[in-house]
């Protein structure tokens, strides 16, 4: 088997100073193959954004700190790369889309200029050629009349259109990996579907791998090959999409699934699990999910469950897995 394009190994990212240091990401591991789509799901605050920013090495240090582990991209450990080489990767072989299309573009430059700026950092295209390429990219993300829109400022576009521009920007230099941190969360439902379809379609054409971060299992089901479920800074379950949906093993994942059909409350689908994620600064001896878990017992509360394989490619961090009768 070929080495994966990206592999995150036992990543730990901390925030804070002195005695108030807490891990926002605590021993996370996963891998993304070339051309594949990996989803990361979990409730808000469980460390998804920090994980994705860490891959771009964009966590602000301080208050953040890369406290352990490795992030291997095409063999090189990004956490040990000199800043200049890291810069060449950002926006080059790795593109990123963020959650907030309304604020992710700079309001004082035209969309075209912002794409051109990225093209110019990573290639020596002439001004003319870069502009043509920007128009081509806007066409690729299906922005209507791209030759005209290229000179528009972000405030002249709708949220969905801005997210298209962000995608064009992220894809400008033909990245091998596209990181999308909740790319559709801020958009309304019909636009969400369009943007996801666009990303899938572009992936088929360009062969880029996608790391899709979301709190929405519905999105994962439609787009991902494999899923990582995160809870309170750790991976609690990881499986191919079909296996995860067919045979969810972690009580948290099962809780998420139970919440899925409630599309009418789209914004907080996951809130149907009782209670909330413990804040990362809360020190817990055992399983971090214990306070909300219907199966929790004394062992759960005292010993953290390790992530272990219960089937090839299916890993779970729960003392009670495999759950009797939960298998389909």
């Amino acid at each position, binding site marked *: 088997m070929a080495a994966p394009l990206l592999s995150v190994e036992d990543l730990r990212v901390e925030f804070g100073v002195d005695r108030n240091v807490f891990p926002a990401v605590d021993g996370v591991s996963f891998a993304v193959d070339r051309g594949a789509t990996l989803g990361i799901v979990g409730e808000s605050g469980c460390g998804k954004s920090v994980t994705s920013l860490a891959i771009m090495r964009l966590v602000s240090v301080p208050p953040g700190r890369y406290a352990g582990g490795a992030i291997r991209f095409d063999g090189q450990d990004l956490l040990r790369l000199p800043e200049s080489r890291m810069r060449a990767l950002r926006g080059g072989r790795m593109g990123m889309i963020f959650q907030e299309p309304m604020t992710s573009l700079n309001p*004082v430059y035209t969309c075209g200029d912002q794409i051109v700026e990225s093209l110019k950092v990573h290639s020596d295209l002439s001004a003319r050629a870069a502009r043509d390429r920007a128009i081509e990219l806007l066409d690729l993300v299906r922005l209507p009349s791209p030759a005209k829109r290229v000179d528009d400022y972000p405030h002249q576009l709708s949220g969905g259109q801005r997210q298209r521009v962000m995608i064009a920007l992220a894809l400008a230099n033909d990245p091998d990996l596209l990181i999308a941190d909740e790319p559709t969360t801020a958009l309304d439902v019909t636009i969400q579907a369009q943007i996801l379809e666009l990303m899938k379609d572009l992936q088929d054409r360009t062969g880029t791998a996608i790391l899709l971060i979301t709190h929405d299992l519905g999105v994962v089901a439609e787009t991902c090959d494999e899923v990582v479920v995160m809870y309170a800074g750790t991976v609690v379950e990881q499986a191919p999409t079909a296996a995860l949906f067919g045979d969810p093993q972690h009580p948290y994942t099962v809780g998420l699934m139970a919440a899925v059909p409630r599309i009418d409350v789209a914004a907080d689908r996951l809130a149907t699990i009782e209670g909330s994620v413990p804040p990362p600064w809360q020190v817990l001896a055992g399983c971090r999910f214990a306070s909300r878990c219907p199966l929790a017992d004394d062992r759960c509360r005292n010993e953290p469950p390790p992530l272990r394989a219960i089937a090839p490619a299916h890993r779970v961090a729960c003392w009670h897995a495999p759950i009797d009768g939960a298998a389909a």
Partner: protein
Amino acid sequence: MIETIVNRLLLSIPVLLGVLILGFVLVQVAPGDPARVLAGPMAPPEVVATIRERMGLDDPIVVQFMRYMGRLMQGDLGRSLISNKTVISELGAAIGPTVELMFACLIWSIPAGIAMGTLAAVWRGSLVDRVIMAFSVAGVSLPIFFICLVLIQYLGVKWQLLPFIGRGGPLWTVDGLRHIALPALSLGLIFIGPVARMTRSSVLEVLRLDHVRTARAKGLSERAVILRHGLRNALIPVITLIGLQAGYLLGGAVVTETIFSYPGIGRLAVGAILSADFPLTQGAILVLALAFILINMIVDILYALLDPRVQKK
């Protein structure tokens, strides 16, 4: 853009009218009798009375104001009671030097303030930041006359590096530059503080925004991120602040010109007020008000140029 300018001009009409009324009333209630000033301290009371009558000073104040406005409309600001030259020609001679002083002050203090504020923001919490902020607090809190006197004492008197009395000629001559250096330095020092502080907080605020993270994710160098995506956006509120500081700056110019015997509008205004030369006082107030309006108009235009969201409404 044209619309912005026209709007601005229309808005400035009531402001101007207000200034005219205020200037007129202030001169009326100020001590001193213009007829007495014109006639001279030794003139007999009958002469003064005749002059009062001829100048219409015994008419109701509203009538006097209307008469004043009527003449103003025709471009007649009257004559100085002291020099008997027209107010227009007196003001005309003083405007050039004041514009030069403003220019010489702003041309260095705005870029310096912006650069200092940006450095302080980028190195927030460092020694550089603390030194820059201490400097700007000093600039804001020290009275301008004190700064002028300290500079005169050292650069002028002790080390004899620069002249500190009067104007040496137009700005493009060596003597002109040498003479304007100290006044422009003093006036600029009080202006740097607010600009640096505003730039610092504005840059810090902008650097936290989402689009800056996007800029980093594009692979830009930290320098490009700070200048093109931080400072560029941060300038929008800084420009507004500069407009708001215009009055402060004009006030500072009055003090600076007086201390350095620099023949501009500010010193003219002070001289006119002290000698109860009321046509000249009113003229000077009018010019200062116009300058204030003009500076704010330039600021509005710059604002529209810097922020595309304003232009394309």
